[in-house]
Structures are given as C-alpha cells and as structure tokens.
C-alpha cells in the first residue's frame, strides 16, 4: 500500500512537470499551429540560463532566475516565433516540425559546447527534508513541485478563462478568422502564446532541475514524454494536455514497477499509438471535425 502510494505520488510530482511542458505544447498548437519538437530542449535550457547567471555573472539565485525568465521570453518566445515559426508556418505544419527538430539539436549542442557536457547540480529553492504519509515519503521538493506547478496551472486556467486578455487568446486559438473580425489583435495574441510557453518551460526547468540535475541532453526524454502526455490527454485542449501529463507520470512509474522495466518507454509509446489510432483527439480532448 505504501509502495503504491509512493509510486502514485512520485508519478504525480514528475507528471506535474510533464503537464507544464505539455500545456505549453498544446497552447502553441492551438494558437499558432506550431508543433514544437524542441519542447524538451526548451525545458532544459532555462536551467542553464540560471546557472550562467549564478556561475558566470555571480548573481544571487533570485536574480539569476529572473534573468533566465527574461532570456527565455526573448529566445524561446520572441526569437523562436520570429525567426523560425513566422517564416515557415505559411509552408505548412511539416516544415515547422522539421525546423524545431533542428532547433532542438541546436539548443542541446550549444549548451554542451558553451556550458558543459556534464550534468550540473542545480540549486533548490526549497529546504531538504521529507514528509511521511501513510507509508510513502515525499520530499519537500516534491511537494513544492506539485504545489507550484498546480498553482501555475490553476493561474493559467484562470487567466485564460477569466481575464479579457486570456479570453482573447482563447478566441484566437479557437477561430482566428472570427477573432480578427471581432477586433482581437490576433497577431499579438499569438505572440503572447509563445511568451506564455516560454514562461511555462522556464518554470518547469527551475522545478525539475534540482531533482533531476541540469544536463544538455535532458530534453530528449523529457520532450518525448511531454509529447506523449499532450497527445494522450488531448492537445487541442489545455486541460487535456495537463491531465495527460499527470497520467503519463503515473503510468510510467507503475509500468516500470509492475509491468516491465526493459520496455518502460515502450509502455508509454504503446499508449500513445493506441490513443492516436483510437481517439486521435486524446482522452480528454475535444473532437476536431476533420475538414475535407
């Protein structure tokens, strides 16, 4: 029982990170028809912005995180949109997919060359320590990850549904033509989406790196699992993608513990393929009427 709870809680804590990455992934798809194959590297990078801030510039952690956020907004938000997506999207979805594959390589290799090929310890914002709960153990870091990620997801949902700006972004995502007719500055809304994604990956990066260390190739696994999460949950619906993140985190842990550790990744991939074939809009997604 304690073990089951342990796996569940650990799965949820990791799943929270997947959820953040998957939500950003879904946002980009909804609003800008952008499939970001570099989303994993996007999560990897901000941790190195922080490390560059503390190690190279000698900044205190808080300031370094702020710097990382600003850099992420500029590079992973603005620059990514202007230099990659804007010129390529008119050619279709596929060129963007291929370009983001290249972006992923670029980010990964750049970090390796210009920072380090080695895994880096990353400062935690939370004190060490653990909490025992019915035979399971949670570290304060886990609790912080769950709390912060949960709050961020909640805040994002409130922002998207309750504020004027958020609703304008939603409208743009759902039907850009109509949004334009309604006088919504859709181009700016699309830009905001990219910025929001950059903020989400920065948050994910800062939450995950103290636990799993910062390393240039962390994005490979993380990106793959975030895609699976988004698609399994339903990536035309942000709520679906978030639920998918938690689900995938939990399934991964239970699968590894009770099914097969050899085929650990395979279990998730089978889930992915089954969902795509049987329920392409995802478990919690909205069915998109396929236009012929």
């Amino acid at each position, binding site marked *: 029982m304690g073990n089951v709870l342990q796996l569940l809680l650990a799965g949820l804590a990791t799943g929270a990170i997947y959820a953040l990455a998957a939500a950003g992934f879904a946002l980009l798809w909804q609003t800008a028809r952008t499939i970001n194959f570099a989303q994993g590297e996007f999560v990897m990078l901000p941790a190195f912005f922080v490390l560059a801030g503390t190690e190279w510039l000698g900044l205190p952690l808080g300031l370094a995180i702020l710097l990382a956020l600003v850099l992420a907004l500029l590079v992973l938000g603005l620059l990514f949109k202007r230099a990659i997506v804007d010129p*390529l999207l008119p050619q279709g979805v596929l060129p963007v997919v291929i*370009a983001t*594959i290249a972006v992923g390589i670029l980010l990964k*290799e750049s970090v390796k060359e210009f920072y380090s090929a080695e895994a880096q310890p990353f400062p935690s914002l939370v004190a060490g320590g653990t909490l025992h709960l019915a035979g399971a153990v949670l570290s304060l870091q886990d609790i912080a990850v769950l709390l912060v990620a949960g709050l961020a997801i909640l805040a994002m949902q409130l922002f998207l549904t309750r504020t004027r700006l958020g609703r304008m972004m939603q409208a743009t995502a759902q039907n850009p033509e109509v949004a334009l007719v309604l006088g919504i500055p859709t181009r700016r809304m699309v830009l905001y989406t990219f910025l929001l994604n950059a903020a989400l990956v920065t948050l994910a990066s800062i939450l995950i790196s103290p636990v799993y260390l910062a390393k240039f190739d962390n994005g490979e696994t993380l990106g793959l699992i975030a895609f699976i999460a988004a698609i399994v949950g339903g990536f035309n619906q942000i709520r679906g993608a978030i639920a998918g993140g938690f689900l995938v985190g939990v399934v991964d842990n239970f699968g590894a513990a009770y099914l097969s550790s050899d*085929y650990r990744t395979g279990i998730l991939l089978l889930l992915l*393929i089954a969902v*795509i074939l049987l329920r392409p809009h995802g478990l919690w997604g909205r069915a998109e009427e396929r236009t012929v």
Partner: protein
Amino acid sequence: MSAGRLAGPAIGLAVTILLLLLPLTLRGYGIYLMSLWAVLTIAAMGLNLTLGYAGQVSLAQGAFVGIGAYAAALLTTAGWPLALGMAVGVGLGLIVGWLLGYPALRVQHHYLAFVTLGANTLLFLVFRNEDWLTGGVYGIPGIPRPRIFGLATDDPLVFYYFCLAMLLLVTLALGLLLRSPWGRAFEALRENPVRAESLGIDTRRYTLLAFAIGSAVGSLAGTVYAPLVQYIDPYPFALGMSLNLLLMVVVGGSGRFFGPWLGAAIAVLLPEWLRFSEGLYLVFYALLVILVLVFLPGGLMGIAERLRLGRRPVAG
C-alpha cells in the same frame, strides 16, 4: 536552352566519373566515408519516396535500416549468403513498412510524425531487449563481407564499388518507379490527396505502398550497412538516425530526385569540413538546416534548379 538541356547529363557524367575515380586516390578513411555516403543515400532516397514524393512523414526510417542490418547480420553470420539477407531484409521492410502505413490512413502530418517516432523507439527496444534474436546490447560482431560473383569484397575499395553499385541500382529502380504511373500517383497523393481520391487514385493503397517501398529501400540500405561496419548493435538505429535521414532529405531537397545524394553528402562531409570547430559542427549543421528551410524551401537541389533556368522540376 540547349546548353541547359545538356547540363543535366554533363553533371551526371562528371559525378559518375568522380564517384568511380575519386576513391582510387583515397585511403581507408576516405573510402569508408564514401561507402557510408552511398549507404545513407540509399536510405535517404527511400525516405524521399515516402516523404518527398508521397508526402507521408516518417520518423522511423532509421529503424528500417536496422531491420535490414539485423536481417543481413543474422543470416550472413549463420553462413547464408548476403543475397538472402537482402531478400529477407527487404521483405521484412516491406511488411513492417506496410503496417506502419496504416496509422497514416487515420492521421496525418504531425500525428503521423509522432506515431512513426513511437514506432522507431519501439523497434529499437525490440532490437535491444530481444537478445535471444538480436544479441541485445552486445550486438552482432564479425559480419562477413559478401562475395559477389565469386569476388571477395574484403578490400575496402572493392566493397565501396559494391556500395556504389547498389546505390546506382536503387537510383535506377526508383527513377523508373517514379516515372511510372505509381510515381505520379504518389505525387498526386502529396499534392492533393482529396483530389487524387476523387480521380480514382486509391489513396489508401498508395499510402501503404509509399510506406512499404520507402521503408524497404531503407532496409536494403541496412543490409549493405551491416557488412560495411561488420558489427552492429541497436544504438545506431535509435531515433537519431531517423532524424538525420529526415534532415538529409530536407537539406538536399525533399521531393527532388537527387536531393538525398546531396543531403547525405553534406551530412557525411560536414563534420570533416568543420573539423576546426570540433564539437560545434552539429550546431552549424542545425543552423544550416534552419537556414535551408527558411530560405530554400526546395533544399539545395532547389538552387541547382533555379540556376539551370529553363529546366523543369524533376517530376514524373
């Protein structure tokens, strides 16, 4: 105009002579690189059929190279001739490729990219975990080089000519295929699947065929790769090779017949050209891919076409 018309054959002749004679001036490493280029070009031409001509994205081509490589390695180390390994490898490639096509009937574009990506990783896991068959992480050592009409190909130069001959055969076969109505149906599928279907083109069947044939060509490349490196394990056939093959096709020019020749050449030679940059060559490569995508949607072969004004696109 007449000069433009002669340019194609003239370039072809020059490239052929270069490919035949250049290795004579090279030592082991240069010959190995050219052999590797020939093998990767075959694999990329297969992907170019699926992606460039039929418009179906596949991120699993590397796994198909693996299927061919394992078929060849297992059979030749058990004493069977490579020809059998090739037949089995290509046959397996056709079957698994056909199966991989089924998801493409339901989902397109990015979804298809994910499904095929998942398939690649699953196949990799099978290569790695089913060690009773594949030798698992230990791989298969001592893969012999074939004898062609009684001639041993142990010498790197002789084996290079074998690789080149395979490449030319594949190029010829694909050229004929793409000129045939099948090729035209593939292109119609890429250009406008709904219209193609309304004109009687069975898009389901052609989609499956595009996957099966493109994948089988990838497997054929694998059957040459195994005796080239003489040792295989699962790692070369993970997602990385699929992504690299995809980038080769795109850089060379997706849907351009000779695009993979150029794309593979750049992928193989770029680390050499950028030797001064040490590890940075991948950064440059990624930048090159992005620049090509943004500024040259037709890939590098697209420039060649633009330069030869008056010539038509290489279409069926």
